[in-house]
């Protein structure tokens, strides 16, 4: 009984603590949601770190319309339910716009809720079309999956029309599956030949020897890898182990492969990818971002970090264009931002002159690069 009493007291204390306290109207409150613990922690942490850098830069330069920005990142452990809890926590804090969520399934759940609450959301990296479907307050920084699948198929058609293509993809991941679906239908429409398709899941993403061998036996000379760079790096190694050397072709998730600590970059030699961001680019914006990120977090930023960084600047541009003030509530800001989003154009790390359709989809040009001597080069 005593246990129960003490637990109840603890619970009561928690309730008291939860009655929120916030000073209103002096700063813009921007919330971030992404997985920062668990298996997907790498994506959320990177995006939130990138966003934090952008917020710090904006504050140092005088804020948005002279108003400082507060940023608070919450963990969703890549679970829809926890993401909603994080969202509710942010609402208690008085959030006015949200950068997030980073991964697709939680984003669908949160955006449905935010749509009925009228809270503006801009996701750095949840790329499925389901994320933006039927919601006017939901915008994306990254390409949608179909976009990438079609672009990849068309690029191969134009440059390597006779390739025998194998596809290996992660079929419990909306991102990977989404790109594969449109890639395959576009390739079939183009008359390209797909000789093998292999799948893997979260639980089986440490060993690809079977899939790689099957692709080799099927005579594929081009292997399309619509996935993040972590499993891709294992595939490259295992292909190398059995002396299989086709052309590997990746999408934006592949970016970051050269920055994996300890990765033998010679394995990635000749890999092609479509990516909006490259940490090796030499323009001022990228160089300064990469340096800052390295100083603060001791790592080279990946595409998620760049997306998070851009997301904050896009919000800034939109807030400025709409002339929002920090004393407005989230719903008013949401309507104002929804009104201006299709009209603004932003230059960022992940694209020049990014514009948005009213559906929430971004328009920017993917860039095809090939890895030569451990760095990206134009093919």
């Amino acid at each position: 009984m005593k246990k129960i009493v003490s637990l109840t007291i603890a619970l009561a204390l928690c309730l008291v603590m939860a009655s929120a306290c916030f000073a209103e109207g002096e700063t813009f409150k921007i919330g971030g949601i992404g997985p920062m613990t668990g298996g997907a922690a790498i994506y959320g942490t990177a995006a939130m770190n990138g966003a934090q850098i952008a917020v710090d830069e904006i504050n140092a330069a005088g804020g948005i319309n002279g108003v400082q920005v507060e940023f608070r990142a919450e963990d969703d452990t890549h679970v829809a339910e926890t993401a909603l809890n994080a969202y509710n926590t942010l609402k208690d804090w008085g959030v006015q716009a949200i950068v997030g969520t980073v991964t697709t399934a939680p984003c669908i759940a949160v955006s449905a809720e935010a749509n009925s609450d009228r809270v503006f959301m801009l996701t750095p990296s949840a790329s499925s079309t389901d994320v933006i479907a039927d919601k006017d307050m939901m915008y994306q920084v990254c390409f949608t999956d179909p976009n990438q699948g079609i672009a990849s198929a068309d690029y191969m058609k134009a440059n390597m029309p006779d390739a025998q293509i194998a596809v290996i993809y992660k079929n419990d991941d909306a991102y990977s599956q989404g790109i594969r679906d449109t890639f395959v239908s576009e390739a079939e429409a183009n008359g390209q030949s797909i000789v093998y398709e292999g799948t893997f899941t979260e639980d089986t993403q440490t060993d690809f020897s079977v899939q790689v061998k099957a692709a080799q036996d099927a005579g594929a000379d081009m292997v399309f890898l619509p996935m993040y760079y972590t499993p891709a790096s294992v595939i490259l190694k295992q292909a190398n182990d059995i002396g299989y050397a086709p052309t590997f072709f990746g999408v934006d998730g592949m970016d970051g492969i050269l920055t994996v600590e300890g990765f033998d970059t010679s394995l990635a030699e000749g890999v092609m990818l479509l990516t909006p961001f490259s940490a090796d680019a030499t323009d001022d914006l990228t160089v300064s971002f990469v340096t800052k990120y390295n100083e603060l977090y001791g790592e080279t930023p990946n595409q998620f970090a760049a997306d998070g960084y851009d997301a904050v600047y896009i919000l800034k541009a939109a807030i400025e264009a709409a002339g929002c003030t920090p004393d407005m509530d989230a719903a008013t800001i949401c309507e104002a931002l929804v009104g201006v989003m299709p009209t603004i154009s932003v230059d960022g790390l992940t694209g020049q002159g990014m514009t948005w359709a009213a559906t929430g989809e971004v328009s920017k040009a993917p860039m095809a690069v090939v890895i030569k001597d451990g760095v990206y080069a134009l093919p």
Partner: protein
Amino acid sequence: MKGLKKTTKVDFATYIGVTIAFIVMYILQSGKHLSNSLSGQLVPICCFIAMAVSLNLVVGISGELSLGHAGFMSVGAFSGVVAGMSLSNVIPSVPVRLAIALIVGALFAAVAGIIVGVPVLRLRGDYLAIVTLAFGQIIKDLINCLIVGYDSRGLHIIFNVSGLKSVTDLHLEEGGKAIIKGAQGAVGVTKMASFPAGYILVMITLIVVLNMVRSSTGRSIMAIRDNRIAAESVGLNITKYKLIAFVTSAALAGAAGALYGLNYGSLVSSRFDFNTSILILVYVVLGGLGNIWGSVIGATVLYILPEMLRSFSNYRMLIYAVVLILVMLLTNNEQFKRWRGSMAEKLGRGKRAEGGV
């Protein structure tokens, strides 16, 4: 109250306690006195209370370690979502559809419970544990292969063994809607769950489990737990009673899963993996094996705890782990228990009241 047995009093205290908690929270929630964070957690808390109570029936009352309870939740969640979504044209009333979804979820999970239980309950101890774990994984993988959609012609289901099919292979008519997209799970689910529905679920779970425990069936189940051979020698049908406990527990988990699934806009089967099964087991063990009231409290506190630790940002889950280890050490270490007992005696409080069974 005087004429009632002690256990009956405890049962009524449980019902009343849960009802009072519900009324208080419901008034607070409708008056907007509750933080968004807490009011968003009410439905999942109800689901996990139902999960913990139903798992307690297997682990605490029947004495079999099950590591696959989330698998039944998963079956219930996905079948419930399919039922709830596909009937939207036929039955416009949301509460009715929710009730049907819960029943469908419970039925499917019960069927899964029978399929798993009949062969598995022959095994004992850790072997049973590993087989339930294996079933949890299998259920997860199988649901990953499901592609389900509906249109005016009815439900369309593909079982995607090769992994190469997608929603387009359903050939849905204009206006049709995909409900489950294979491993990407269910997306675009309409939120139907509500806190009162959660309360009803918890009450039904409690009434079913407590009544079963107090009935002759429950006494047989516990007799089998305490001494299987003695129970068998007085003519109890071991398999039958174990199966009753297991299937009832699975059905309740299915209903909880259906409510859970209909509370979120998206649902993926990887949510119901081994870690979730373990989490529910933690609620049960921490609340006290066989102690139903303890499961209710255990699930509530442990569900809220990680949310309350949000202010520790990166250290959140680390602190959660430490709390878990410390609580287990403090409540199970013999020396500490003795010390606590002697302290209690010194303070003259007398015997510690035991809740539950």
